[in-house]
């Protein structure tokens, strides 16, 4: 006989999910599963719409990372139009994606994960949230909120709104950026950079004394890593080509254009979750299990596939990072660390972009009718690689949509992570609250956005259930 624990809902993530733990009578874990329990079906409801409406339509998938959908969708639209967009539009799109990376990573780190990281995994659950953190470390929270605000303001300047902007369009961007807007952004980069450097130094000091067990057990396994890199192998977030490395750092695939993603990635469905499980086809073959093709995307993967950032402070931080993690970081706990490095790199990259005179060039948009039946747009969302794949009829109306979302890529890895944490921290049918929190924190390390990944709606409550072999639920922890 065994027990099943269910964590339902999982908290401090974006979306709605639950975790099920199945325990044997001796308290050992027989299975651990991550279920996404929400569904929206954007791929269906986009059918029949003009492709020009798709960026703003698909941006509604998510209130956290609408920019990522705007960009991937607009790039798919560029392909359908068969146009090379003006340089000012490329620069504006790069700028808005950097703002997106900053605001989303700041949200993940300060609002969602800092309560675990700074107050401790076993801290009183009543205090282990952003309000508890405000009480004990108000300055950290204040600076984190301002850092996120900086990212949001960059987004607002370029896309028209902080959330669900509409100025990223097929063919480029709708409006030129003004000199005043560039100056406004420039005013705030210094503060944002200092905040990031300070919190990075603080986090690095914590790594010396804390989190050894978490680093060892939070998804610390070999897998493939997928992300975009620039032509010289540098960190890339908007253009570039796909690269895949394994846990030894060997390049498994390189210089892969986004439209070939279906040749490389399969998509398995699960009976107990709305979240699909993409896998690396080559590792699975025709008859293998998707688990053989497990790969990860996002900040951890981007740092594993890239050789360098190409900016001074971020590259110095990357050297320290690799001194700790090795050339390839395999523990998902390091997503947090990688996120801070990406914020630093993004701020430095913004400083570089603001000095480019073409950023305010008035030519921002190419116009054309549909000239191709299919368009695949890809970008690096804060959580990882995002694909939008559209097919249109002769008039440019959508006939098929496939969206492969960052959190989906990480689905198998998240499942493996909670199994690993359960194995390391559960010893007997009574599961302490601190362990349940570690399970949530294991998921939280990936900063999953389940609204996006199932193209679904809502905040992310989180449930854990412990269930007997006969199906009886013996423990249930629910947070709304």
């Amino acid at each position, binding site marked *: 006989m065994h027990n099943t624990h269910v964590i339902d809902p999982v908290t401090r993530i974006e979306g709605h999910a639950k975790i099920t733990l199945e325990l044997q009578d001796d308290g050992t874990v027989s299975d651990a599963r991550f279920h996404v329990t929400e569904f929206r079906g954007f791929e269906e409801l986009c059918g*029949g719409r*003009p492709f020009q*409406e798709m*960026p*703003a339509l698909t941006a509604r998938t998510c209130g956290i990372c609408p920019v990522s959908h705007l960009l991937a969708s607009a790039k798919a639209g560029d392909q359908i139009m068969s146009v090379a967009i003006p340089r000012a539009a490329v620069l504006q799109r790069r700028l808005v994606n950097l703002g997106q990376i900053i605001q989303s990573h700041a949200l993940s780190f300060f609002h969602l994960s800092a309560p675990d990281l700074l107050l401790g995994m076993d801290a009183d659950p009543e205090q282990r949230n952003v309000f508890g953190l405000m009480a004990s470390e108000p300055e950290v929270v204040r600076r984190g909120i301002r850092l996120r605000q900086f990212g949001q303001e960059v987004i607002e300047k370029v896309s028209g709104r902080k959330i669900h902007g509409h100025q990223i*369009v097929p063919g480029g961007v*709708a409006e030129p950026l003004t000199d005043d807007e560039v100056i406004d952004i420039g005013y705030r980069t210094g503060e944002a950079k200092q905040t990031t450097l300070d919190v990075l130094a603080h986090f690095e000091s914590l790594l010396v004394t804390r989190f050894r067990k978490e680093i060892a057990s939070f998804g610390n396994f070999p897998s493939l890593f997928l992300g975009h890199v620039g032509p010289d192998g540098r960190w890339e977030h908007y253009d570039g080509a796909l690269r895949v490395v394994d846990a030894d750092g060997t390049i498994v695939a390189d210089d892969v254009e986004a439209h070939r993603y279906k040749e490389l990635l399969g998509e398995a469905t699960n009976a107990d979750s709305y979240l699909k499980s993409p896998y690396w086809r080559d590792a699975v073959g025709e008859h293998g299990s998707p688990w053989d093709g497990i790969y990860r995307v996002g900040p951890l993967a981007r740092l594993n596939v890239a050789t360098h950032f190409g900016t001074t402070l971020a590259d110095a931080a990357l050297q320290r990072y690799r001194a700790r993690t090795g050339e390839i970081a395999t523990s998902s706990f390091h997503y947090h660390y990688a996120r801070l490095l990406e914020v630093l790199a993004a701020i430095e990259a913004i400083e570089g972009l603001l000095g480019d005179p073409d950023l305010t060039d008035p030519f921002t948009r190419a116009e054309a*009718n549909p000239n191709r039946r299919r368009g695949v747009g890809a970008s690096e969302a804060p959580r990882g690689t995002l694909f939008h794949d559209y097919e249109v009829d002769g008039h*440019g*109306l959508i006939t098929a949509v496939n969206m492969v979302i960052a959190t989906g890529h990480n689905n198998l890895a998240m499942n493996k992570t909670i199994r690993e944490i359960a194995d390391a921290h559960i010893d007997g049918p009574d599961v302490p609250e601190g362990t349940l929190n570690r399970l949530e924190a294991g998921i939280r390390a990936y900063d999953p956005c389940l609204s996006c990944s199932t193209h679904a709606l809502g905040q992310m409550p989180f449930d854990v259930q412990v269930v007997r072999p006969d199906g009886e639920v013996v423990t249930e922890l629910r947070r709304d």
Partner: protein
Amino acid sequence: MARRQRPNVPVVIDGHEVMAYPDESVLSAADREGIRIPRLCALEGTSVHGGCRLCVVEVAERHKLMPACGTTVVEDMEVRTRSRSLDEHRKLICELLLAEGNHVCAVCVSNGACELQDLAEELGVDHVRPDYQFPRRSVDASHPKYTFDPNRCVLCTRCVRTCAEVEGAHVWDLAGRASGSHLIADLGQEWGEAPSCTWCGKCVAVCPTGALAWKGKAVGEMRHDPSLVAFLSSAREQGEWVDREALR
């Protein structure tokens, strides 16, 4: 519309004494006095349709509500344009329009510049009480310059009247009955195949929603200009494009 005489028909609108022209509608007289009556199908420069019923008003000694656009003034007529009952009627009409089609402002080309959206805001429509019908309607993107999205059409017939009366092409018509009513081009062809269409774009200019739009517009980018038709009609009546010297 240009008038040579002074208005000489006294009417009372919302307690204000207003002088109207003998053949003038209540809507027009109220407009001149700056008294706002909500409307959707009414379009200066075209004939009266009276289909949307948003401009209904109460007229003393008449037992039913009258459309202000299709009611001609008579001497000493007393009109009320606002009352709790009228507000509720208009609000319900607006809700019915929203429930009947697929109006999703957030992802509409006319978001921020839509008369239906403005009306909903003006009338305090914060939710829709009738069940949404979620009709399945296909977008017609066959025209090289314009797009017709019937999901956003409110059957106001502004395009029908403008095309027939101002452009003289009469591409558009309504087909079907009741909830099956829909807009058709050239007796039911794809718009891009309709030989009568002159590509003038007047129908697009007068559309109150995002149903008729310039092709290639992304969300929130469409701007209509219904005043174009009033200008064209007025200019035509005044012979703006005629060589007046030659006429003498």
